[in-house]
C-alpha cells in the first residue's frame, strides 16, 4: 500500500488543516516546521508502528504529523521533548539515537522501553510521553483517517469527515 499525497490531504482535512495543505507543501506552510531530527524520529517511529505493507511513510509523516505538530507550539515542544527522552533511553543501551536503528530494532526498543503497555500521558513517565506524543500521534493520524482504517474495511472512521454514503454500502460494494 502506497501512501499518497492524497492520503495526506485526506488526513489533514480530518484534523482541520486541509485548507492549507491543499495549496502548499509542508515546507511552505504558515505553521512552524519541526526540527529535522524530530521529523526524522517521527518517521522512524512511524516505520515501526505502521504496517509493513505501507509505503511512502516518510512523506505521509512530513505532510500530516509535522503539520499537525507545527500548528501548536506547545505540542511541538512536547513532541521534541519526547524525542529527546526516547533518544536518551536508546543511547543507554546502544550508543545510537533511535533513527540510527533498523526497523526491527526500533520496534524492539519501543517494547523494551515499555511503550507498548504504557498509558499515554503528556506529562507522565518517559515511556508514557513517548506513547502520547510519538506513537499515538502517529497512530491517530493513520487510523483516524481512511489511510489506515480502510485497511480494516472502514473508509470513514470516527474523526474523519468522509460523508454519509459509505455507511449504507455493504462490504462487497
Amino acid at each position, binding site marked *: 500500500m502506497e501512501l499518497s499525497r492524497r492520503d495526506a490531504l485526506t488526513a489533514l482535512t480530518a*484534523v*482541520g488543516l486541509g485548507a492549507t495543505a491543499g495549496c502548499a507543501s509542508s515546507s511552505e506552510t504558515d505553521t512552524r516546521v519541526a526540527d529535522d531530527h524530530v521529523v526524522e524520529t517521527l518517521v522512524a517511529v512511524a516505520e*515501526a*508502528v*505502521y*504496517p*509493513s*505493507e505501507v509505503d511512502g511513510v516518510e512523506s505521509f509523516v512530513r505532510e500530516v504529523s509535522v503539520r499537525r505538530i507545527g500548528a*501548536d*507550539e*506547545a*505540542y511541538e*515542544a*512536547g513532541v521534541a521533548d519526547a524525542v529527546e527522552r526516547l533518544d536518551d533511553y536508546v543511547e543507554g543501551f546502544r550508543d545510537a539515537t533511535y533513527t540510527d536503528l533498523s526497523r526491527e530494532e526500533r*520496534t524492539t526498543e*519501543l*517494547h523494551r522501553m515499555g511503550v*507498548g*503497555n504504557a*498509558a*499515554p*500521558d*503528556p*506529562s*507522565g513517565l518517559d515511556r*508514557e510521553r513517548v*506513547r*502520547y506524543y510519538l*506513537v*499515538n500521534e502517529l*497512530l*491517530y493520524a*493513520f*487510523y*483516524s483517517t481512511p489511510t*489506515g*482504517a480502510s*485497511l*480494516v*474495511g*472502514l*473508509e*470513514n*472512521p*470516527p*474523526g*474523519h*469527515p*468522509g*460523508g*454519509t454514503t*459509505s*455507511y*449504507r*454500502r*455493504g*462490504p462487497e460494494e
Partner: protein
Amino acid sequence: MTPPGAGGGATETGPDTSVDRTPSDRTDVCIVGAGPAGALVAAKLAAAGHDVVVLDAGPRFDPAEREDRMERLLRPGDDRPVWPVDPERDAYSSTGEREYPLNAARVKGIGGTTLHWQGMVMRLHEQDFRLDSSVGAGADWPFDYEHLRPYYAEAERELSVSGASDNPFAPPREQPHPLPPFPPSHSDAIFAEACESLGIATHSVPNARNSESTADASACVGYGTCKPVCPSGAKYDATRHVREAEAAGARVIDRVPVQRLEHDATGDRVTAAVYATPDGTEHRQAAREFVVAAGGVETPRLLLLSKSEQYPDGLANSSGAVGRYFMDHLFAGMGGLLDRRTRQKHVGFITSESHQFYDREDDSRGAIKLEFLNYAGPAPTDVALSADEFGDALLSKIRESYGNHIAVSALVEQFPRRENRIRLDPSRTDGHGNPVPDVVWSLDDSTRRALRRANEIQRSILDELGASVEWTVGPENTGPAFHHMGTTRMGTDSDESVVDARLRSHDLQNLSLVGSSTFPTGGAMNPTLTIAALSLKAADHVDERL
C-alpha cells in the same frame, strides 16, 4: 493529564472582564438558561420585538475548538473533558439507591446539553399524553397530542429535522419533515431481515442533523463523533437559536449563574434574577416576565434556593412538587458478533428504530423504544491507541477487533414516583455558598420489568441473526440516558403540580418554567423535540402577556 498548550478556550475559566455583564434596563423578559429551551424562547420573543436578556451559568464556547474537543474524545491521555466541568460550580450529591452521574449528563454553557446530545427528535405518542386515563399509570398531561401537534411541526422546522413518514406507530402528522431522512445503513438491512422474520416492524429515525445543507448549517459530513461533539455543526445545537436571538436584539450573557429569584411583597410576581459574575459581583436583572429554562436539575434547584419568608419551601412550590417526580429513561442493550461484516462506525447516529413495543397495554411496565446501532464495537483508533502491539501485529489485532460487531439498544420508560427527587444538600455548597443539588434516584419493579422485556426482544433479534451475544445491559446494570424530567411537573391542579398548561407557575403570575422538568410523564422518546415544542408554546403565552 492535560497536554501543555492544550487549548481549553480562554473564555471558559478565570475572570473575564472583557464582557459587560451588568444588567440591562427596561427588560421585557429575563430567561435563565441558554440551552435549547431558553434559546428557542429567546429567539421567538426577540423576533416578536421584546427586549430579552438570557443569563447562563456556563461559558460561550468557540466553535473553532470543536475539532480539538473531538480529538480529546478519540485520543486517550488527554484527561480534559470534551466539555468542561467546573468542580465548584457543578458540585452535586447523589444519595439515592442508584448513583446518578450528573455531570456526565449535562453541559453548562451557551447551547447547553445540545452541545453533546445525540440529536434524536421524535414526537411523543398520543398515549403519552393520557397515560393515567388509558392504563392507570403515571399522570395525564394537561392537554393532548392534538394541542401540541402544531408546536411539534414548528419545532421540527426550527431544528431542521431530517426524517421520513414511514413509522407506522408514530402519531399523525400534517406534513413531511423539513429535510429528507438519512437512508438506512447496511446494518439496518441486516436487522430488518431478522425483524421481519420475527414480525417486528422497523422504520427510519428523525434526526436533528442536516441531511442537506440549509442556511443555518452544512449537511452532515460524517465525522462520526456526534455524541459528544459535532465539529461541522450539522447536528443541531442551541447556539443556532442563540445566534438568532442575538441577531434579533436579545442579550445573552455567559458565566453568570443565577443565585436566586426575588419576588414582590405580595408574592405574586418575580421581580429580579440575582446573578453572580466571574469576579464574584452580584447583580439584579429586573424584568416583566421570567422564564427559567435551566434543565430538570437546576430549574428545581433554583426554585428551592429562592425560598423566602413568604415561600419557606421554595418559590413556586405551594404544591410541594418542586424537585419531586424526577425521571430519566433507562438504557437496555445487547450486542454481539456476527460471522459477516456489519460496517459499523461510519457515522455516529442511528438510522433505524422500532416503536412497536412503545404503547402500553396496561400499567405493568413502561414504554420501550428499540434502536439499531450503527456504531457497535471498537473503531480502529480505539484499538490502536491502547494496544500493546505495533506494526503488522497491531493491524492484525485491529482486523480481529473491528468489523463484525452488532448491537441493539432501547430506551425504557420510568413512571413518575414522588420519592425520586432533586433536593438541596445542605451539607455541601457550590462556589457561591449555595447548597448543591442532591439527586435521589431509584428504579421500581415496573421499570425492571420493562428492561427485562427489552432484553427479551433484543435477545430474540440477535438469536434470529445467529449472533453470539457478547454483552447485555439490563435491570442489574442499566444506567440513565441523561434525560432529566418531571421535577416541576405540569398539571391543572395547583395542589399537585408546579406549572399550568401554559407553562406558567401556579403561584407566580410572571414566572414560566420551560423544559423537560415540566413533563408529567416521560415516555421513552428522547425529550428534546418535546422540550422545543413546549418552549415555542410557552413563548407564545409569554408574548400574549407582554
